[in-house]
């Protein structure tokens, strides 16, 4: 790890979420429900990145996300990498796998859909980057979704 990335302290155990598109940083934090954590969380954005120009990084102490939690990120930042840190070492790199189904998280963009007219959770089927609403069957692009 070079000095530039050491702007915030390295963590002993936990998860470093890297390569977040800078403007998506807070959405990632929201989808992972970081506001409910009691461990140390560092959120950085507008950091310089060779790949992305600007990027966001989130470091979360003593927290290892489940595959389900990670898959939620597919709707905002499918290319991010989660570094699993144990005793200051990266022991595993996890990538976001787009799930076949997305429950909650995303709003259906059809105002006449039942999910926008009834207190209920949304539900989408995912194929090739297209979300199809389970109820009204309207399709939307995974890169253009609005979160619930």
């Amino acid at each position, binding site marked *: 790890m070079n000095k530039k990335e050491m702007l915030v302290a390295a963590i002993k155990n936990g998860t470093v979420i890297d390569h977040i598109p800078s403007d998506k940083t807070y959405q990632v934090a929201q989808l992972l429900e970081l506001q409910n954590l009691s461990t140390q969380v560092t959120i950085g954005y507008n950091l310089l990145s060779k790949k992305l120009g600007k990027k966001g990084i989130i470091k979360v102490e003593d927290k290892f996300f489940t595959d389900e939690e990670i898959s939620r990120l597919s709707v905002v930042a499918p290319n991010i990498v989660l570094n699993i840190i144990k005793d200051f070492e990266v022991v595993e790199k996890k990538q976001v796998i787009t799930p076949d189904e997305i429950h909650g998280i995303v709003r259906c963009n059809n105002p*006449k859909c*039942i999910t926008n007219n*009834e207190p*209920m959770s949304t539900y989408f089927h995912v194929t090739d980057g297209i979300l199809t609403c389970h*109820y*009204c069957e309207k399709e939307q692009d995974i890169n253009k979704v609005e979160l619930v």
Partner: protein
Amino acid sequence: MDKHNFVTIANLTREKILYMIEMAQEFEKHPNRELLKGKVVATLFFEPSTRTRLSFETAANRLGARVIGFADPKVTSGTKGETLKDTILMVSNYADVIVMRHYIEGAAQYASEVAPVPIVNAGDGAHQHPSQCMLDLYSIYKTQGTLDNLNIYMVGDLKYGRTVHSLLMAMRHFNPTFHFVAPKELAMPKEYKLYCDEHGIKYQEHTAFNEKVIADADILYMTRVQKERFSDLMEYERVKNVYVLNNDLLKSAKPNMKILHPLPRVNEIAYEVDDNPHAYYIQQAGNGLFAREAIFCDVLGITLDEVKNDKTIIL
């Protein structure tokens, strides 16, 4: 036994469609029975639709069921802010099957997930109207003797017309050739043309509507071109009389060709056509009764065999 619903036409197999058609044929032979004696059918029309409601209620009555429900959403607790789920659960306490029409898309699918009794979708907004599709399929089968290898011409509003979209999807099992005849503004949407490509369905598009274009048709499926669908009223004025069927256009039609229309019609089929032997749209609506009797039996777990060996027929 899993609860049967009739919510969408999209996932019905070829075998299931033919099974439902065979059942409808039985009901056409003997529409009056007591197969549903002792059952209560609820018809919940959150959006008025007199034609569809009467057809369902007639089907229920002719099978010996009793019918409860509402035709006017203004009288329901929905206007007091009750959720659809609560309404459906409440009615599930009373009825053995719920027929529902709703202006919200996906409402029937959701109702089928929360209700302990079968849900029959009688139309959910612009989304699906599967019982209409079933009667269209039955009408095609009845007039052509088959659903296979037919030339089906769809005319008029192919953009918003949900009946043409449902028919297109249901026919994918039967190797049809479609011809889409529509003004540019109301052309068949890209997603349905992609659907055709994905399922190997042949289609051609036309903007002209004349004797020659439709000469090859087995089925001419007319729809209403509605003024409110046009953003450009000049365009509407230009096309409003182009997609009108009259006897002159039918001179070269194949002898077996039949004209279907989901009704109501306004001016897209001239009244002179009503007496033409190709006209079939009134009988088509009548077939709705048999198709809906079959739908009721299917969702209530009554099989084709039981319908064939039915001892409750009223002659």
